[in-house]
């Protein structure tokens, strides 16, 4: 398995087929499917506990997944076959023919748990007013507007991982530890918050590691 450094060295930090948000949503869904097929869950993958899948973030904060050291771009059949091959064996891939391709297609179209999750009215405005009060994220060296926009985008990109209740997203932005909160109720993200540092206090709800992000 190639290590992450060698992956980065060959400028492999991009999903070639992801042009729109819908593409990214599909890409993340496919990554979840692959994790499920190899017996892992995405929390394990995102926390670096999976033996076969790994993840890095590109400069826009998108997560790029690797399976057995190979960058995944599951919209291409060869990658899908690779993922399924690990479970069903190459013979089945060859013998399955059209029926298998049909199954494959339906499998990858399945939606995530949070398809349709939306931001509640006023979330962006309250996030902007609250999270950046007192210049507490001035260490990022960015304007409030830029940080608010990128912060909302970061939460939106992790929308598929959010669960009802309290969600804590932790990671590094420009090498500085930052945490986000997203509170979900009735299919809506009711509020988004961002605060300095990453705490070791035990918290309720879901914790998501968004990795290292450059803003």
């Amino acid at each position, binding site marked *: 398995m190639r290590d992450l450094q060698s992956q980065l060295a060959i400028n492999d930090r991009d999903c070639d087929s992801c042009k729109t948000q819908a593409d990214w949503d599909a890409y993340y869904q496919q990554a979840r499917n692959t994790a499920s097929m190899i017996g892992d869950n995405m929390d394990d993958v995102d926390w670096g506990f999976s033996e076969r899948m790994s993840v890095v973030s590109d400069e826009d904060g998108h997560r790029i997944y690797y399976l057995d050291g190979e960058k995944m771009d599951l919209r291409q059949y060869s990658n899908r076959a690779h993922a399924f091959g690990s479970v069903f064996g190459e013979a089945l891939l060859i013998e399955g023919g059209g029926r298998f391709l049909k199954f494959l297609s339906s499998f990858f179209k399945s939606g995530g748990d949070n398809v349709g999750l939306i931001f509640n009215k006023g979330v962006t405005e309250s996030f902007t007013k609250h999270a950046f009060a007192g210049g507490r994220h001035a260490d990022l060296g960015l304007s409030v507007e830029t940080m608010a926009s990128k912060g909302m985008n970061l939460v939106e990109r992790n929308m598929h991982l959010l669960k009802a209740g309290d969600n804590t997203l932790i990671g590094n932005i420009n090498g500085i530890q930052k945490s986000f909160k997203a*509170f979900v109720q009735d299919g809506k993200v009711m509020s988004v918050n961002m605060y300095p540092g990453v705490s070791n206090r035990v918290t309720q709800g879901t914790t998501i590691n968004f990795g290292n992000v450059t803003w």
Partner: protein
Amino acid sequence: MVKENQNIYLLNQEDIKGHNTFHLINCIINTIDLNGVFELNVHLVIENCIISNLKIHSCWFVNGLLLKNCIVRDYVDYQMGGHNRSPIIIEGNVFTSFFNFFDCQFESRIELNNNVFIKGTNLLGNKGEGFENSFVEGWSAENNVGRIDINEVEV
């Protein structure tokens, strides 16, 4: 608006909006749901009530809150709160579960007096954490039973 001596299953923003003050007295309330209600422009007074679920995550009591002589039975999670232009007064209540104040920015005073926090609260706790509460016009806390400076976010 005054609601008195009632058994209320759910009270939410729709019930409260449009009033300058909303006064609940001597009620048994299953749920008050004000989660995510930014800019609540009502002076809310809740007095002598039994409340099972007090949901105020991300609620901004812009015109203040008086919570007085109530029993609150479930965990209260008050995150990203504050932003009050009038005082928040919590007085003479019994909280049977933990009361979590998380990254609240109180622009006017908050007063905690004569309460019983059976499992405590962290209004003055979590010093140095990125989510420590802040107080522009200060706070007062007198004669409370139970710790109000716990360094946790749940107990």
